[in-house]
């Protein structure tokens, strides 16, 4: 009966004024089929050709890949849980969520289909990526078909566990919001530091990955993985029953605002919409004394810790970026540039929590005067925390990346990268929706090209971070061109920031 009510409700919702209905669904399938036929086929053929190359096959079968996979799957599980705390799988349009969450329907009836759909996407996505990577390996005879099927089964299982972690994150309240990911991350780190047989599901899933010189797959990890995956799936109805209405509605509203901001090109507002609110440390005394500089730096360094998961992710970004920045010059050819650009992007993202004070300053100088210092000084002071914190973490990670006699160079490159990226962050903090001229349709025989302008607007910070990463590679070799490039990027970011402030 309840299922009938939910189905009737969804049918009625599908008939809404702005609903796309059956015709919209058919159109969506038509577009998807066209995209797959036009781009998917050639893309897949090109990918298959690349994956069949001997070097790629050797790289996929290296023991380090299986070890890295375990860590990657652990990170995915932690990330899924954390994502669930701000945007879980039981989220659709706000009105739909509101109507279902405030009705007398059981949660599993009301949201079961939505969660099943989102979870299926995760599970099938995991299995799909695994198939794309491993079918060429089996095709080349480097693994048996049976082993391939076991690997695909393991992918389905770990996908189910990750999807359940996503739902569990949505159910989590209080300290569980940050304690569970911390414990999971601790377990993953412990498995790296302590050489012991894998005790976690991600270790068992990684054991199904083919490794050169290893015959077959151990049965015990697969059995354990299957048991845990089945347990995770079986726990879903119980987790669904614990979903709280107000949080569901709040998540749906937040997601809707994020979706609207993202589709209008306002990426910073979109990301801010998903940002976790502070949960701990309301009684910490982090602002004191008489010196504004010291008070602001202390506040800007300490306040981000009130969102522990965000800080954990940021530390991983800064630390990982620092390590990659130090190791990149040793990579061959294009890989060095790719690694260095990735490192700069990770550092850019990692600086986020410590740039909140900088963003606050930018808002403050656009409003009637609240702080008793000049605009320039306010911005400069609030830039100190990301600068000092970023250099400390990134520099330490770069130095610890390995033995070597280039400690001063590594430190110098890290500091320069952080300094320029703080300038890029400053620019991003004043960015809002794209200007009208960028969103004006540009009709051409190839379609509406205005999308490129909006993309450029949305991704300019990412591109600048990439350029900074490439320049950092040259900086390590003492290139004067790299110095000029970094100065130009910083100067461009600051000039653009001032222009954005004026045009507000």
């Amino acid at each position, binding site marked *: 009966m309840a299922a009938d009510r939910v189905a009737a409700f969804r049918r009625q919702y599908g008939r809404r004024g702005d609903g796309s209905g059956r015709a919209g669904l058919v159109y969506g399938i038509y577009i998807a089929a066209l995209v797959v036929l036009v781009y998917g086929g050639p893309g897949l053929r090109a990918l298959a050709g690349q994956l069949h190359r001997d070097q790629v096959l050797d790289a996929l079968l290296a023991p380090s890949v299986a070890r890295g996979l375990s860590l990657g799957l652990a990170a995915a599980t932690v990330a899924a849980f954390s994502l669930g705390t701000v945007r879980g799988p039981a989220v659709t349009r706000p009105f739909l969520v509101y109507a279902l969450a405030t009705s007398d329907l059981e949660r599993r009836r009301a949201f079961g289909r939505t969660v099943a759909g989102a979870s299926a996407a995760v599970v099938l996505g995991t299995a799909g990526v695994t198939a794309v990577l491993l079918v060429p390996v089996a095709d080349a005879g480097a693994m048996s078909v049976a082993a391939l099927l076991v690997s695909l089964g393991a992918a389905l299982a770990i996908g189910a566990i990750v999807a359940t972690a996503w739902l569990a994150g949505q159910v989590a309240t209080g300290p569980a919001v940050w304690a569970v990911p911390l414990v999971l991350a601790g377990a993953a780190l412990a498995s790296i530091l302590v050489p012991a047989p894998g005790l976690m599901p991600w270790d068992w899933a990684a054991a199904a990955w083919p490794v050169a010189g290893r015959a077959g797959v151990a049965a015990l990890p697969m059995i354990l993985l299957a048991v845990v995956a089945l347990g995770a799936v079986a726990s879903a109805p119980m987790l669904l029953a614990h979903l709280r209405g107000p949080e569901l509605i709040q998540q749906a509203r937040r997601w809707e605002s994020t979706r609207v901001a993202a589709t209008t090109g306002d990426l910073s507002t979109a990301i801010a919409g998903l940002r976790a*609110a502070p949960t701990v440390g309301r009684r910490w005394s982090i602002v*004191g004394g008489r010196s504004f500089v010291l008070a602001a730096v202390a506040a800007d360094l300490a306040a981000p810790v009130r969102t522990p998961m965000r800080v954990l992710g940021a530390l991983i970004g800064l630390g990982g970026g620092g390590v990659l920045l130090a190791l990149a010059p040793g990579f061959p050819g294009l890989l060095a540039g790719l690694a260095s650009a990735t490192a700069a992007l990770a550092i850019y993202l990692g600086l986020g929590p410590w740039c909140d004070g900088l963003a606050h300053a930018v808002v403050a100088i656009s409003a*009637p*005067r*609240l*702080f*008793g210092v000049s605009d320039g000084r*306010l911005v400069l002071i609030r830039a100190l925390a990301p600068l000092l914190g970023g250099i400390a973490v990134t520099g330490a990670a770069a130095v610890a990346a390995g033995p070597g006699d280039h400690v001063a160079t590594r430190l110098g490159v890290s500091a320069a990268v952080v300094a320029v990226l703080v300038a890029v962050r400053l620019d991003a903090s004043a960015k809002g929706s794209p200007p009208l001229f960028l969103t004006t349709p540009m009709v051409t025989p190839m379609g509406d090209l205005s999308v490129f302008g909006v993309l450029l607007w949305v991704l300019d910070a990412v591109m600048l971070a990439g350029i900074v990463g490439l320049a950092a590679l040259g900086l390590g070799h003492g290139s004067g061109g790299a110095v000029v490039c970094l100065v130009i990027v910083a100067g461009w970011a600051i000039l653009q920031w001032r222009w954005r402030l004026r045009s507000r």
Partner: protein
Amino acid sequence: MVAVRDVTAVLGGAPVLAPVTFDVRAGQAATLVGSNGSGKTTLLRVLAGILRPASGEAHVGGAPADEKDPTFRALVAALIGAPPLASNLTLVEHFSLVAVSWGISAAEGRDRGMRVLEAFEVGALATRFPHELSSGQGQMAALALTLTRPCDVILLDEPEQRLDDDRVHVLGRLLEEEREDGAALVVASHSVALRDALTGPTVRLREVGRADGG
């Protein structure tokens, strides 16, 4: 302290403020009244130095209102729209941070902000983060933050909004205390209770294009 002479304002080519003239001395609280669209917020923006008058002169502390002038900024505290709040700082930390930026100790800043919160009987909000405030609580926090910084002139745009009747009376008392301490206030308000509580001239704004004051 505040001298307005035949000030008008134009936005997007359309006049939004009919000519207005008045003076506010130190220790006076002027109230701006008028129908919606009569230009109360616009006039406050002119006095805050954010908007340049289309004609006439607006002087604060003997000099033209200009937000870029540091001396002017030191004189004027304004609440026109929501103040900038940091999502990861508690209210009491906002008070302290604003205070130290003006050379006042963090402890004194905390006391200044808390005086306002406690007058509203919401002292418990001190350790709340901005996202944990209701609409009315947010308004009280904004008022406390505005009154934390030192100033000679206070500009407030409908400070009574979202406050219950009792708290509008408390607000009137708080603003009167600021006036008695020597500040000049310009307050745009639709609240008769708040206007009655304040001592000073009433400035009636005429809606552009309408014969009377609305």
